[in-house]
C-alpha cells in the first residue's frame, strides 16, 4: 500500500507557493516516521518536511520544483 507524503496544510500561514529546496534522503531509501526528509522555502524562510510513515520512499517532486500546501512530494510503500 502506497502512502503519500504531503506538505502539511498548516506549515506556513499565508497561501504563498513554496520551492522544494533540498531532499535530505535518497530516492528509494528506507525512511521512518518523524525522520527529516526535505526542506521547502517560502519567502526566504525554510521549513522542514518530516516523514509520516515507515517504508521505502519514492520521490515524485524534484529540487527547485514549486510546491503548495497539500502538494504530494513523495510516496512511501
Amino acid at each position, binding site marked *: 500500500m502506497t502512502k503519500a507524503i504531503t506538505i502539511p496544510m498548516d506549515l506556513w500561514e499565508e497561501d504563498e507557493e513554496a520551492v522544494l*529546496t533540498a531532499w535530505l534522503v535518497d530516492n528509494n531509501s528506507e525512511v521512518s516516521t518523524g525522520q527529516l526528509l526535505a526542506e521547502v522555502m517560502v519567502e526566504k524562510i525554510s521549513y522542514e518536511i518530516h516523514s509520516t510513515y515507515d517504508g521505502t520512499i519514492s520521490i515524485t517532486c524534484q529540487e*527547485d520544483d514549486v510546491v503548495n500546501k497539500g502538494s504530494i512530494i513523495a510516496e512511501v510503500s
Partner: protein
Amino acid sequence: MSATKKLTIARAMAESLAQEMRADPNVFVMGEDIAQLGGVFGNTRGLLKEFGEERVRDTPISETAFIGAGVGAAMDGMRPVVELMFVDFFGVCFDAIYNSMAKNIYFSGGHSTVPMVIMASTGGGYSDAGQHSQCLYGTFAHLPGMKVVAPSNAYDAKGLMTAAIRDNSPVIYLFHKGLQGMGWLGTEPAAISQVPEENYELEIGKAKTVVEGQDITIVSIGIGVHHALKAAQELEKDNINVEVIDLRSLVPLDRDHIISSVKKTGRLLVVDEDYHSFGVSGEIIASVTEHDHHMLKTPPCRITFPDIPIPFSRPMEEWALPSTENIINTCSKMMESK
C-alpha cells in the same frame, strides 16, 4: 565508518558548530541574524535553542564593532566564529581583519594567537547587485596571516568548519550562496552530500581531484567546481577527458597537487567566480608556469568574472558569470590548438 546522513552545506556547517560548541565551552558564535533567525543562509540553525544567548549572539549592524570584538575575544582565549553576512561588507571591518586578526600573532612575537573564524557568504547569480554578489577570494588570500577555505559540498563544509574552529590561526571560511540549499538562490543537488554524524576535520590546504582525466586540468573552487563537473560530463561525449580539481583551500594553496595534474594533462584552465585581474586565477597560472612552463602544451586559460562591478540586471550578470557553457567552449578550443 560512522553513520552518515544527507545534508546541505548550511546544515553541515551548523552541525560542525554545534559539535564543537559541545566539546569546547570557549567556542561561541556571533553575527547579524545568526541567533533568532538561524542565519539568513541557514548555517546557524538550532544553535540558539541549544546553547542560549550567551554563546549565540545576535549583533547590531556594525561589522566594525563585532569583528573587532571577535579579535579581542580570540586573543583573550575564546574561539569565536563570527559571521560577516555578505563578504561584500568587509569594507567597514577590514582594519580589524587584516591589521589585527591576521597580524597580531606576528606583532606579539608569537605570544598572542587569534583563533578566530570569520564565515562569510560569497557569490552571485540571483540579481543581488554589486554589493551583495562578490566572491573576493583573492582579496583575502592576498593578505598574509589568514587561512582561506571555501567548500563545494556538505562533506567538505563540515570538515573544513571543524578544522577552522580548532585551528590556532585565523581562518576565513567562504561559503557560496548558490550552494547552501536555500532555494531562493536555486539548488545545486551535487552540493548536498552524505556527511558522517561524528565530527571530523578536513585538513586545510589540501586540494582534491574530483574527476580524473588526461586532456585538461580544470582548477576551481566553490560553485565553479560544479560548473566544471557538468562540463566534464558533456566534454566526455566529444572524447575530451578533463580532470577537475577542487582547491577547497586557497591559503595554504596546494600548488603541488595542481602541478602534478598539469604535468599529466599539459593543459590548464582555471575557473574562478572572483574578478579576473590580480587574483586567484593569475596566482594559479603563475604557480604552474614558474615551476616549469615546458609542461604546457597550450597557453593556460582562465574563466573568471570580468573586471566590472557585478550588474543587477539578470541577463547582464549571467553573461558575466562563469558557466558550464563557457567551460565547454574553452576546453574545446584548447584541444584544437596543438
